[in-house]
């Protein structure tokens, strides 16, 4: 993808400004042509011109936020522990958001992620599973969570790809069903994890970096490679960009669509393991409103809600922005309501900033 074509605006009801040469997202009324593809700079410059450059606005927003944090909360903000706290908090929703990036790039949406996290966490912490884990190894719990997530994703995928139910509706149904099932299984109790090794492993650190953060990093890197460097990612972007063209190019659109939901389901399974480790519990209330948080992070990260274009780097930045925001608020002792108002204003400001920065870069 060339570096100088940056699209931020994605308003469905969007259009070029009434007259004027602005770079709208429309097909044919674009301003002056870009004038030849840019020479591709390799190496670091290429990266700067590529993913980072495309997300320049987000980076600026994050940096501004960090500056505000340092000014208002000083050392309490700018400490390594606080950085790790932010990362640890962001890691769970981050894993889900990376998975969500794929589904949205592929032209879909998934509202059931939070419910799947809940169901996976519950299933992986039932007495039965925990007994098995005690007899064998805690990895059983991890597998249980991943399997439940994957199966939920599979059901979503089949309903959407082969049942041709709109993703919004199919996953809304899954949202209701999975959370209900989680409640039934857990009998609405919080299930406590007895296996200390599990907690110790996932709650621990390697070289000072929490395992959860490492997990998130791995998921993000794998996600980035998968989206940008594999045929799987290429197919994903193709079916999101123009499903008909993808079909006529011999791509199995339905199957690929299904894979995307399975992938996200597994990501939810990972997130479930992480939240289990963080809270030492499995309950049906885990993951509440993750769907909104994840979609917000993905969209603010610059992935088109209509599919066909997306970046994992942007998503990670989006997650970090939201998490840092919460952290700065907490450190500054802001009351909840004021926080909410400020959050709304900051989201709008960040997006406008991202637009301006990208626009100046691209002309």
């Amino acid at each position: 993808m060339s570096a100088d074509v940056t699209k931020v605006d994605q308003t469905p009801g969007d259009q070029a400004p009434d007259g004027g040469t602005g770079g709208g997202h429309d097909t044919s009324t674009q301003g002056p042509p870009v004038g030849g593809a840019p020479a591709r700079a390799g190496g670091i410059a290429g990266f700067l011109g590529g993913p980072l450059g495309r997300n320049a606005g987000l980076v600026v927003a994050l940096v501004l936020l960090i500056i505000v944090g340092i000014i208002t909360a000083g050392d309490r903000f700018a400490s390594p522990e606080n950085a790790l706290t932010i990362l640890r908090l962001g890691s769970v929703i981050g894993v889900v958001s990376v998975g969500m990036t794929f589904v949205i790039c592929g032209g879909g949406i998934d509202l059931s992620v939070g419910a799947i996290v809940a169901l996976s966490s519950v299933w992986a912490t039932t007495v039965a599973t925990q007994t098995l884990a005690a007899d064998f190894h805690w990895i059983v719990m991890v597998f249980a969570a991943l399997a439940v997530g994957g199966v939920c994703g599979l059901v979503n995928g089949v309903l959407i790809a082969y049942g041709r139910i709109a993703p919004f509706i199919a996953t809304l149904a899954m949202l209701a069903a999975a959370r209900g099932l989680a409640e039934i299984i857990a009998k609405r109790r919080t299930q406590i994890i007895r296996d200390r090794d599990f907690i110790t492993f996932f709650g621990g650190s390697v070289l000072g970096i929490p395992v959860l953060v490492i997990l998130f990093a791995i998921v993000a890197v794998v996600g980035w490679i998968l989206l940008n460097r594999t045929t799987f990612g290429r197919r994903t972007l193709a079916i999101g960009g123009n499903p008909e063209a993808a079909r006529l190019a011999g791509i199995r659109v339905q199957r690929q669509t299904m894979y995307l939901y399975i992938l996200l389901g597994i990501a939810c399974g990972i997130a479930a393991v992480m939240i289990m480790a963080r809270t030492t519990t499995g309950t049906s209330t885990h993951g509440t409103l993750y769907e909104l948080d994840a979609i917000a992070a993905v969209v603010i990260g610059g992935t088109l809600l209509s599919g066909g274009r997306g970046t994992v780097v942007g998503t990670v930045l989006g997650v970090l922005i939201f998490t840092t925001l919460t952290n700065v608020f907490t450190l500054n002792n802001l009351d909840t309501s004021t926080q909410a108002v400020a959050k709304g204003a900051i989201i709008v400001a960040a997006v406008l900033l991202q637009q301006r920065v990208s626009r100046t870069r691209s002309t």
Partner: protein
Amino acid sequence: AGCTSNEPATTPAASTQQPAGNAGSSNDAPGKKVVIGFSGPAADHGWLAAINNSALEEAKKHSDVELKAAEGTNDASLQISQIETFINDKVDAIVLLPTDGAALTEVATKAMQAGIPVINVDREFSSPFAARSTILGDNYGMGVSAGTYACQVVKEKNLTNPVIAEIAGIDALPLTQDRSKGFADALKACNQTVDNRVAAEFTVESGEKQASNLLQAAPKIDVLWNHDDDQGVGVMAALDQANRHEMAFIGGAGSANAMRWIQEGKMAATVIYPPTQAADGIKLARLIAQNKGLSDLVQVEVPKRIVLNAPVVTKDNVEQYLPLGFES
């Protein structure tokens, strides 16, 4: 949970509910400055708002307390990170009303290990090592109080086959389960069961909605227990709308609204669930951090565990409780 006292108390049980009672004690004299971190669930509900407000007000009363109140949240993961932030900040004590007791146990234990005393409010941790002191409302006891009162109504009115209905709070929360269990257990004592049960979401709107449906489901109701006076405003609106006031309407939590209804005769009773717990938590945190004890106790140290009573407010004693009712 331990204390299940259900006979209407003639005086508010814990002395902590009556700040005035402690007014003269030496404990209120300013001591060493302490920073207290406070974190609770999202204040999306009158009772929780009252919890928050009472905590803030309590902190303001003490010139030696600096309160750091984190954003209320219903996301356990976020709340954990708030506690982590408090640990990073090296606050002197933490008052924690967890969204889910079990889920916050680990991080609370971490805080205790870091030498920060944790005061657990309302929803109990799953490990005794996670809190220096625990102050609980009694959810099960609340259900028992409501159930016992219901039995009393059945007996007084001499009902042979009474229809008993229940409007619960958020069903996925353990506290709702506790309340319902207490209610059912107490009803067993007089050979009754819950005939119709719906669950609302602690909001006025959901209360109205669920009540409207419930009134259709049960054409005649003798006793109705609504877990929460906040959603009770909506329930009352539905009762008014349908003009159904045949039942003995029992509330929960003890909001000022409910008390006024009791005065007006629109409500039979309400079971108190004190929203002052967090304020008590702040007080305890301050005392613990300053190494003081409860002055009314002989004990030198602050007790490990305090369970608040769940008294029933009726027309007979409402005047006494009205000042404690929280505006929701």
